[in-house]
């Protein structure tokens, strides 16, 4: 009898912003997808179409467009919209596409709360929400008493102020003393720029996350030790 593996979806949200290097984002997206597939997730990229399918889109969109932003036009709007998209898809794991999986397992996502931020600083680069939790995020954003300095307010500030529970060891920022042992690593602009100045983030991700794994695999293939066939049936679970 053949084993059946259950795969879980992981979502990211992509919306091109003119002032942000689209080509570099494309490269990061490709590596993001590769990393999560290697961890046996089904990576799915959501767009504004999913966000706009939410019944409260108009109300939500009007609300978040009132927040100030220092980022290029459209960037923070997309960050807010992704929570609508997650709710439309019935919740799940939503990560930025610069959160690269190393050895992530769906078994790590056993949390008692409907919403859990998988970052020690409360940065919503990786958030797990049940279906109810994803709707709660939308409702919270609509009803929360948002306080800001009039210059900048992003979903990161909201998540930190709202105080959803955090799971601090699943995702670590690149450069953290333990990042090489983390199930997933966040290669943010600031961390990557500080740790590896003047390098494309995609190239840093490739060198740090993929090259060692691929070298080992190539050596095995060369020695004839790798079975290239993968005939195990696969079934989607979420």
């Amino acid at each position, binding site marked *: 009898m053949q084993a059946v593996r259950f795969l879980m979806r992981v979502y990211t949200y992509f919306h091109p912003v003119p002032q942000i290097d689209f080509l570099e984002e494309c490269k990061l997206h490709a590596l993001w997808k590769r990393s999560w597939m290697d961890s046996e997730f089904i990576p799915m990229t959501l767009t504004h179409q999913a966000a706009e399918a939410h019944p409260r889109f108009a109300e939500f969109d009007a609300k978040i467009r009132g927040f100030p932003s220092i980022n290029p036009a459209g960037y923070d709007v997309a960050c807010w919209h992704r929570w609508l998209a997650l709710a439309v898809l019935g919740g799940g794991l939503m990560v930025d596409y610069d959160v690269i999986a190393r050895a992530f397992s769906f078994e790590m996502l056993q949390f008692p709360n409907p919403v859990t931020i998988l970052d020690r600083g409360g940065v919503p680069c990786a958030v797990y929400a049940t279906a109810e939790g994803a709707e709660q995020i939308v409702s919270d954003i609509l009803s929360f008493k948002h306080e800001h300095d009039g210059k900048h307010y992003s979903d990161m500030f909201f998540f930190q102020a709202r105080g959803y529970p955090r799971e601090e060891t699943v995702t670590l920022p690149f450069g953290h003393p333990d990042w090489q042992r983390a199930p997933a690593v966040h290669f943010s602009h600031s961390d990557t720029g500080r740790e590896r100045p003047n390098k494309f983030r995609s190239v840093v991700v490739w060198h740090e996350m993929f090259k060692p794994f691929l070298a080992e695999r190539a050596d095995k293939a060369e020695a004839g030790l790798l079975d*290239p066939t993968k005939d195990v049936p696969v079934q989607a679970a979420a």
Partner: protein
Amino acid sequence: MTKRDRTIAVVLAHGKAQAAVLRHLPVWQENAKLVVFFTPEDDPLDLPGCTQFSMGKSDGYSAHTNNRCREALRFASWALMDYVLLIEYDSVVFGPIPEQFYPEPGEVTAPKFTVPPGERCPGRSIIFEGSQFLHFPILFSMSACERTVEEMDKMSSWAEGGLTDRYVGYAVERANLRVVDLWRSGIVYTKNIIGADMIDEAINAVRAGARWHHGIKDRDVFERMSAAARELPSMPS
């Protein structure tokens, strides 16, 4: 947005081909908005400002070359583009790719060679399993690229003895993808190496409309062929 704006080129190259890569890069950039290089770890290119992913060893006709090709296609298939142009460092398409040669979903565009299955590789103890191979450049629709990678994942890393054009052709064949064969198009002039002794023939081919080439390694050959291509009425000067 043009089709060029929705095309990623993945270039299989190595450090010893640096000079040819620098010559050919502007041509590739004319074909694709995003150009990414895949090179061996022990023989990378020196290309500041370009994206280069290195993996495996520099070992011609080996599992390393097949693996690099497979990873290049896998990367390209997830890069949020619509077309993938797979290029070896010695292959070019002069000028914009003509509209009619862009593949439909599930199709691949390339010069196709049909061969008898079970053919033996000259001088080596390899028996080819495929009944086709494709010369570079090879243009994939995104869905065809994904299917090709899926097939490569089921194949041995040593498939077709590590000869990349055979490896890609065999994977495309196993995936049952339709190949838009450019031989009948009149835009192909391709050899394993376009040597100095072939330059007159190559230039005549370019003047007759050929612009899809493999085997350009030499600077003089490239310069004379590209000069001839620029004389074509439909080509930008």
